[in-house]
């Protein structure tokens, strides 16, 4: 087993364990867990059976297997960044609502004191 395979295995094991723990404490849904399993399972498959990428490459019309792996990785990254954006946006909106409500509460408290 070469170094790349060892590192990938350790990283995937760590990432998957995190996903399973987060599913157990109900902070992610089963669909999200399934998504992560597919992502990391796919990664292992590509690293341990590089020939599979060639087979997929032929099927989707890309010449080289390695290119397919990059292609999929880039699409995945775009998707993840988009999800992050949506999440950050939601948190940002929550913070705004919080500040608005706090400012109204503080103002009403001040007026009652007067």
């Amino acid at each position, binding site marked *: 087993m070469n170094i790349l395979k060892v590192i990938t295995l350790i990283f995937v094991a760590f990432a998957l364990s995190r996903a399973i723990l987060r599913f157990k404490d109900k902070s992610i849904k089963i669909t999200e867990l399934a998504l992560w399993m597919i992502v990391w399972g796919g990664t292992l498959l590509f690293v341990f059976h590089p020939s599979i990428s060639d087979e997929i490459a032929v099927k989707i019309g890309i010449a080289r297997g390695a290119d397919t792996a990059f292609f999929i990785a880039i699409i995945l990254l775009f998707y993840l960044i988009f999800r992050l954006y949506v999440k950050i*946006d939601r948190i940002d909106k929550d913070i705004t609502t919080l500040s*608005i409500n706090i400012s109204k509460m*503080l103002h009403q408290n001040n007026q009652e004191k007067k």
Partner: protein
Amino acid sequence: MEEKLSNSNKIYIVIPAFNEEKVIGKVIQSIKGVGFHNILVVNDGSTDNTEKIAGTAGAEVLNHIINRGQGAALRTGIEYLRETIDPDIIVTFDADGQHQPSDIQKLIEPIFNNEYDIVLGSRFLGTKSNAPLMRKFILRAGVVFTNLVSRINLSDTNNGLRALGKKAIWGIDITQRRMEHASEIIDEITKKKLHWKEVPVHIIYTSYSKARKNNTNLNFIKIGIKILIKKITE
């Protein structure tokens, strides 16, 4: 008529303000000078004396504990007034001294006469604007963009001077916390089927207002991108 409008207790001027200590006092005084005394300043997490100066000048002041942007400050002001006073008309007014208090009358009259739900100030309608050339170009591009996205035909889509009648006060939801709220309000006009009108207003670009961070040309491009993302994700 003028007397009747300005003396009504149910007309409120909402001013979102962030670090405007240099001008906020004057702005409040000038609004009072044309007869409007119900002034609500939403101090958007300023680190200077905006709160104190606005209070001394005679405005009611609400404070954001952190800076959230002009859209969020307007939302605070409108929500607060909705829940407490339930005003007939809310006028939104910029804190940086660009808007002219003498224009308020023109904005509220069509609502007062029950003809429209919302009246928007336009710097490109009739009056001559002293906007710098680059700003004019970007504003025009913004107008085309917003009109396309919101399926409306306005001459000025990023003007902070507007008057909202009851239907608009209760109907318009502002979710965009920064400058994008201006385009969002226009979007809401179409969605909520509000009767709208544009009236010419005079905007004075001072070296102070031009130097404000929110007013940079790059910022207008950022706003466009944000609106597009919102359209895709909603």
